[in-house]
């Protein structure tokens, strides 16, 4: 009898879903008990993945209940991107930015523009534990998380550029704000420490169970509410859309 392409899912005794087909047993080196070539990479994976403090006998029990595949992810994000595109177009094509009060523009300069830096850090952390994860389905979900962060960086950068059209000196020093403003320094330290947490489990847990829940809630929800109170209701809606990625 010819072996089916999804022989490894035959025990389910049904035709596998698209998600199961696309996500099962992706990490070939797990099946083959290691990489084909002996390289320093082996030792890195042994130390920071196999010998992680976070242990589970059956990582393959993880399954994304949303069954997100690349196709469904792009379809889902496409709707959100259409929505944010419309918001940004509205901001850019009207005198919306000229109508924002000076104190609020100053606030945006201190928060929105420098926010690209910590979000970029979170994106790099997600990419790290994605490729270090011990199971392909965790890798896939984590890569989507990394893509969500890229989306957030891109939208924050776009919003920053739009504001520069009305306020030419806006955010000319955002890197300096990120590196020197006392308000950002405790978070910068956290992000930089997290970037050198090499144990995949600790990196995953600290990012997803400590830093992101607090950061996302404060910046996407509470800061959005603050913007709305200052009359910047479109930013609140944009951050609301980006916050959906964080849930």
């Amino acid at each position, binding site marked *: 009898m010819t072996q089916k392409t999804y022989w490894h899912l035959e025990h389910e005794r049904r035709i596998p879903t698209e998600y199961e087909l696309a996500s099962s047993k992706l990490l070939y080196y797990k099946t083959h008990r290691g990489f084909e070539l002996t390289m320093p990479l082996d030792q890195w994976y042994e130390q920071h993945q196999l010998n992680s403090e976070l242990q589970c006998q059956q990582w393959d029990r*993880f399954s994304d209940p949303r069954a997100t595949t690349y196709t469904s992810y792009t379809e889902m994000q496409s709707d959100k991107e259409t929505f944010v595109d419309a918001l940004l177009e509205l901001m850019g094509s009207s005198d919306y930015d000229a109508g924002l009060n000076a104190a609020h523009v100053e606030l945006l300069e201190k928060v929105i523009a420098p926010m690209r830096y910590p979000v970029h850090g979170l994106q790099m952390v997600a990419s790290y534990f994605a490729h270090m994860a011990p199971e392909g389905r965790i890798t896939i979900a984590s890569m989507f998380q990394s893509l969500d962060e890229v989306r957030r960086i891109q939208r924050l950068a776009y919003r920053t550029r739009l504001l520069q059209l009305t306020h030419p000196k806006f955010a000319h020093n955002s890197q300096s704000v990120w590196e020197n403003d006392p308000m950002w320094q405790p978070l910068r330290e956290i992000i930089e420490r997290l970037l050198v947490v090499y144990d995949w489990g600790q990196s995953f847990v600290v990012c997803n169970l*400590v830093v992101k829940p607090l950061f996302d809630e404060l910046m996407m929800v509470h800061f959005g509410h603050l913007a709305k109170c200052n009359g910047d209701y479109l930013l609140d809606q944009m951050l609301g859309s980006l916050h959906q990625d964080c849930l």
Partner: protein
Amino acid sequence: MVNVVLRSESGLPPAGTEERRRLACGDGSTSTETIMKWIHQWYPQTLRAMHSFGSLFERHGGAAINSEGVFLQLEQTYNNFLRHAGLPSLSQGAAQLGAIGGAE
């Protein structure tokens, strides 16, 4: 975000979490203790980092917002998040801290 849910001893995830992406570690390993150890190590400093943004809400929020309310809500939301993930809330977690060790 990938949500982590620890299965209870019965092997079932906590009620209301079925629709979330979850990572189940219900094999009798010490995952919960390890996860809580890391949370206790990182939470205080992360929360302090969030509080450093407090002045924004004081200075720019007007009468509609006060930073005390923002951070109270932030901690409540975070504890709900932990509960939905099948983890002890932080006050409960703090009680276990002596057993786990390693917190700041």
